[in-house]
């Protein structure tokens, strides 16, 4: 109250603090209103021809029909007027005669496409510009029925949940081995994670390049990575606070395992997305080679989850089955979700962001695990650790070859 009475005489003459904070915003609003009302005074007419940028986000094939989901990525409206497939004008219909900035649209082309062939599509705009799209290998886009959802769930289980669960079965073994080897395994985990992180970031950047750049393009990967990193730091901090209050010291390793599982889960979300969308556009072979490859690839992820627990030994507390299942589900199930999203609503910008999430989450997990690799002298990159790191990278690289046929 003292402060209140002290400032009371001035309050009559000056505005309250909240108004002072609002003032620049009000002035900005007024300035914009005036600027718009007078149609950008002094700037004159727009210079140059309209910039037409239309991005094909998704290609859907049905019998006798090719559907392009497009988005206006440029500053000016785009009007599609004709469509050309393999050097021939073709009949088509579209959702909107003109697509405004950042708006999406759908162009449905009547075309007797033949399975297994490639098609070059050009949408001719009102100014004569062309927007190109390619169907590399024509195959019907699967219908979104129950069977399809079942299939996607099965794929997610095969490539996500089951391999991770199998990998976690190493837990009893690594709890018994010499702690020095556990250090090696942790370093190996770091190697695995580093590979996944780099892989996610690169793939995200690659996908971002195909999407609408107005949404940020490759920046979305970094935004996603930053968001995931910070979110995990937050979750970690919250868990630490809770644990110190409620649980014993031994909870630390499980907290670490949880974070590893969460990070890997976010990564598998992106992986599922890639699988689902590849399936949707017919460029995915659901063969045994792919599933086996993913199984080997992702089994190592299971190892990464349980490694932090092993380091703590018996102090980590009992390995309750429910807890293990929970961790496995956290790491693996997002692959199922990703597969759904990828097959149903694939969008390059969204996919890039999700890959970014995975990369950021993994980066944070690496930071979390790294201290556990230090030897007694406090060195991080001691020979054993370097050996583990390299082994992890090589393991991921070689198993990765199986799925990048």
């Amino acid at each position: 109250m003292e402060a209140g009475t002290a400032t009371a005489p001035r309050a009559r003459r000056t505005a309250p603090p909240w108004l002072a904070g609002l003032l620049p915003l009000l002035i900005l609003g007024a300035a914009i209103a005036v600027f718009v009302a007078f149609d950008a005074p002094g700037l004159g007419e727009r210079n140059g021809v309209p910039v037409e940028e239309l991005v094909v986000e998704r290609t859907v094939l049905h019998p006798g029909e090719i559907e392009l989901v497009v988005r206006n990525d440029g500053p000016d409206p785009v009007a599609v007027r004709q469509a050309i497939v393999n050097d021939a004008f073709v009949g088509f219909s579209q959702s909107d005669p003109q697509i405004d900035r950042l708006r999406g649209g759908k162009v449905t082309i009547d075309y007797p496409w033949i399975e297994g062939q490639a098609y070059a599509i050009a949408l001719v705009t009102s100014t004569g510009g062309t927007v190109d799209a390619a169907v590399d290998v024509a195959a019907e886009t699967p219908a979104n029925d129950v069977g399809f959802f079942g299939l996607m769930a099965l794929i997610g289980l095969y490539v996500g949940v089951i391999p991770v669960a199998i990998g976690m079965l190493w837990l009893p073994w690594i709890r018994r081995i010499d702690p020095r080897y556990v250090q090696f395994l942790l370093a190996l985990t770091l190697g695995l994670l580093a590979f996944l992180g780099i892989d996610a970031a690169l793939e995200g950047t690659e996908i971002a390049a195909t999407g609408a750049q107005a949404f940020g393009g490759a920046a979305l990967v970094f935004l996603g990575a930053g968001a995931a990193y910070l979110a995990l730091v937050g979750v970690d901090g919250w868990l630490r606070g809770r644990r110190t209050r409620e649980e014993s010291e031994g909870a630390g390793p499980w907290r670490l395992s949880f974070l590893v599982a969460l990070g890997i889960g976010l990564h598998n979300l992106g992986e599922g997305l890639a699988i689902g969308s590849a399936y949707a556009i017919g460029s995915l072979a659901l063969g045994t080679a792919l599933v086996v490859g993913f199984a080997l690839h992702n089994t190592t992820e299971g190892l990464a989850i349980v490694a932090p627990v092993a380091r703590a030994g018996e102090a980590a507390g009992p390995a309750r089955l429910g807890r293990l299942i929970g961790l496995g589900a956290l790491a693996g199930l997002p692959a199922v979700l990703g597969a759904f999203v990828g097959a149903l609503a694939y969008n390059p910008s969204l996919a890039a962001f999700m890959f970014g999430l995975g990369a950021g989450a993994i980066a944070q997990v690496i930071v979390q695990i790294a201290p556990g690799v230090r030897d007694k002298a406090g060195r991080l990159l001691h020979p054993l650790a370097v050996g583990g790191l390299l082994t992890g990278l090589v393991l991921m690289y070689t198993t990765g070859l199986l799925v990048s046929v």
Partner: protein
Amino acid sequence: MSRPTKISRRKLLGTAAGATAALPLLHETVPHRVAHDQFARAAGTDGHAGHSAGGTATAHPKGTQRRTIGSVDPRVNGFDPAEIVRDFDRGTVTQEGGRTVRTFEIVAEDREIEVAPGVKFAAWTYNGRVPGPTLRATEGDLLRVKFVNGSGHPHTMHFHGIHAPRHDGIPEVAPGDIAPGKSFTYEFEARPFGLHLYHCHTSPLAEHISKGLYGTFVIDPKQGRPEADELVMMMNGFDTNFDAENEIYAVNTVAFAYHDRPIQVKRDELVRIYLVNITEFDPLNSFHIHGNFFDYFPTGTKLEPRDFTDTVIQGQGERGICELRFPFTGKVMFHAHVSEFADLGWMGFFEVVD
């Protein structure tokens, strides 16, 4: 960056970019049996019948009709292919010392035209139309072609024919390029008789021609040719996205113009087609008639046909006269036998009536 979408159609397959290539991790192809079966079912007899034109060669319910969507309004465009096809400009005729003098006035004009429904093209025109007016004279006439450059760019008029270098309409020889707002009268004797053309010769040549500065130039032999229903067809193309390749092909500019509105001809009447290839960027174009054959007079400089055929190939700037009679009534197709050009607009019909 003013036109980021100008990747050419033909280069597209090579790059294999786009959303479909976004997933290298999982890129593998296999025969898609399930999809194929579904496809076969959908394309079967049940359903979709409304779309099928009946008895088409493919099993697909749709997409057999390859053409553009909508139509071009000639009133908005300022010229009509249906009129251009029979429009001959014989100039203002006077006599000087017993000699026929034909005076023409041609104005170059920048103008946006519609080359396919909804697709605009910033053309350069002679007298506001593409192709420019078909100029016609008789061998031995004196021609005075006053060229007024109302365009924002320098242009010329270069005639094919036998004439003095000063009247050849090229930048390298005076008077050279005719600057915007300036004019020049090209003067020469109409010879030799035959089917010729004129076009702008300003550099860069391909640009000045492909933007629309060309027209047909007919010199009749003194004794004339047999009475006939005479048609002018300039085979042209348009590079609408500036990738040095044509996106749209046509005769007399508008894609599928005579496909949608056939050219009416009378049965058994002699039809004479003045066929000129002014297509830029593609070395060859061709003309093919269905259900009929024609006498072909290359360049029209001889009165005897060289060939009796149903298909001719013309290089850039090549031309020839086709003479034929239609023995049956009904719709008779004609198109480039370069199938790509046909599918991209160079396809039409004659409607033969009694």
